[in-house]
């Protein structure tokens, strides 16, 4: 099926979002967010793929050669590193939560607050 790769992205997105909703552990929740993140990258990169295209690096190939789309690759590559650091920020919050509350279960923390 010619849209199969996009559906993979859809599946990842759904699984990740479901995980975030039902998570009972903040680390699991953050990993599910990373799954959702991965789905966006899969979608972007699949969109740019060109059949029989090579990488957009012009070492030794002519400038008229068929290459895959460099735009989506550029969008994705900066995003990967940046979102990794944002995840680090969330992990920092979780570390704080575990020190303060002694638990990383969202339910337990809310119960403690009330």
């Amino acid at each position: 099926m010619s849209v199969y790769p996009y559906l993979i992205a859809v599946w990842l997105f759904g699984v990740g979002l479901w995980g975030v909703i039902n998570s009972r552990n903040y680390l699991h929740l953050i990993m599910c967010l990373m799954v959702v993140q991965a789905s966006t990258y899969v979608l972007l990169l699949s969109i740019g793929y060109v059949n029989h295209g090579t990488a957009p690096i012009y070492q030794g190939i002519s400038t008229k050669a068929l290459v895959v789309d460099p735009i989506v690759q550029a969008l994705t590559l900066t995003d990967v590193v940046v979102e990794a650091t944002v995840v680090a920020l969330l992990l920092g919050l979780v570390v704080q939560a575990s020190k303060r509350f002694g638990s990383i279960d969202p339910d337990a923390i809310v119960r403690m607050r009330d």
Partner: protein
Amino acid sequence: MSQLAPLAVAVPLVVAAVLGIGHAVLGRIVADIVAVLTAALTLVMTILLLIHVGPGYSVYWFGGWHPRAGVAIGVAFQVGAIGAGLAAFVSLLMVLALVYSTRFIGVQAPRYHMLMLTFMAGMVGFCLSGDLFNMFVLFELMSVSAVALIGYRIQQQSALEGALNFAVINMIGAFLFLIGIGLVYARTGALNLAQIGATLAHAGNDRVIVIAFTLIVSAFLIKAAVVPFHFWLSDAYAVALAPVCLLLAGAMSEIGLYGIARVYFSAFAPAIAPQGTSALRTILVAAGLITALGGAAMALVEDHLKRMLAFVTISFVGVFLFGAGLLSEDGVAGTSIYVLGDGFAKALLFACVGILQNRLGAVGQRRLHGRGRPLCVIAASFFAGGLLISALPPFGPFLGKSMIDDAALKQGLDFVPPLLMIISALSGAAVLRAGARVFLGWGESHDEERDSADEETSAETEQLYDHTPAVMLIPTIALLAGAIGVGAWYGMADLATTAAHTFVDVSAYRAAVFGGARQLGAASSAAPAWFDYVYCAGAVVLAVLIAALGLFSRRIGAAAERLVRAAHVGMEPIRRLHTGRVGDYAAALALGVGILAALMTLTLG
């Protein structure tokens, strides 16, 4: 002169980086001065941009990459009057917030200042940008700075939860945005807003565009905190520092709505209009009204001052969404003025609450009962703020509200002005009642509201002041002056209408990028009519009455008491939805996006 557009974003960023280099050696005072000066410089630049742009657009291509053969290959900042105006407003709020926070002890220099400067850079850039992925990047910059600022006082337990909920929900929003961008790029091969619009004018609507639009709009609705994406806002506002709340309430929520309007009018309108316009209008208007009513009702039953103001903010976001969702020139103009007037008023209220927290060390109405009596100036400002948000004529919020009312009437929605009157009355009543309890000591000290002030909300500075510092007082008065002043000059309405006229003109946007003759004239608006005065004055009177009912219900009689108690009981199920648990918020988010997608598909697809 057009170089000001990138400078308005680059200057705060480079100053933040320089503060980072010198962080080991810089003291608090130096960081404060540098930050305030940078924000002031950005304010000057955005005002100059606003004047320079006039009724047209100024396009700035980064890297000198102008479009070739009709394809935009670089990133553009496309500055229009409304974008520049919003950017200037954001910078002004930032200057006041930075001045206000100079006496906060819990603030570590220079990290706090770096965060505030990048927050401002993200917001200003978002307002000026003309490229979809560039908007995404600046949107993320704004969100991450906001997460760091909300979680700043991490010593408090509830700060963690507020920051985590905000972070997770906004990240999901960012991912939705990115997916939408991917779909748009796949369909149109462009990331520049004008080019997307040009491509869609030929290609028309199809399923990809409808879903992409839904996802992008959902991301902005999450940022703006529209029901049912609003749950994160009350948690976040309750724990953030007062100057941060000031910015979040006055600027960040409006930016989400600006994003929706910008993306619609420049990129998606050619695909959706004219067949889908009325359907989209209905959806946005309905969402706006539900949010406005829900927010106002929740504000009335909330004891914690900051949470109450958070719900007031949500209520006003609903009205803004309603105004912008009318998808007309008058609606956009009215919303811009209302955003200005109301933004000042809400920032004013948060500034007062911050001062209260620093003088008296508590944020719950019950705990503060009557203790605010010695703070006369703050009391006067707080009451003024409450009256202003009820749209007291002839000041700022009144002008905006009357323009929105007129726009609604033009579209034939006659039931709207009375509804908006009730909504402003409810919000105003919540604020006035809180003010009366805290500053005048009226009302019982054990009323029905849930005692959410038992949450740990210690003073934001580690010592309580015995007098209000001037640096906190001056911004508060300045905000009050702003809220009053926006409406004092009716020429403002004409400027806004001219700006809106350009904003909604899709072909003008495209012509600015790709060339083409456009004449953009000025437009004028009618002055508020007599019934606008009646509605708004009525809202104020109603607000005072509802506040009095809440305060003195026991003294008035049994019927009044039963009414108040029934209201509280009625709101309890909605209250219980705000659990504080991120899984619940994500579930509501998913359902909201799903319903929105279903509605859009059925009506536009």
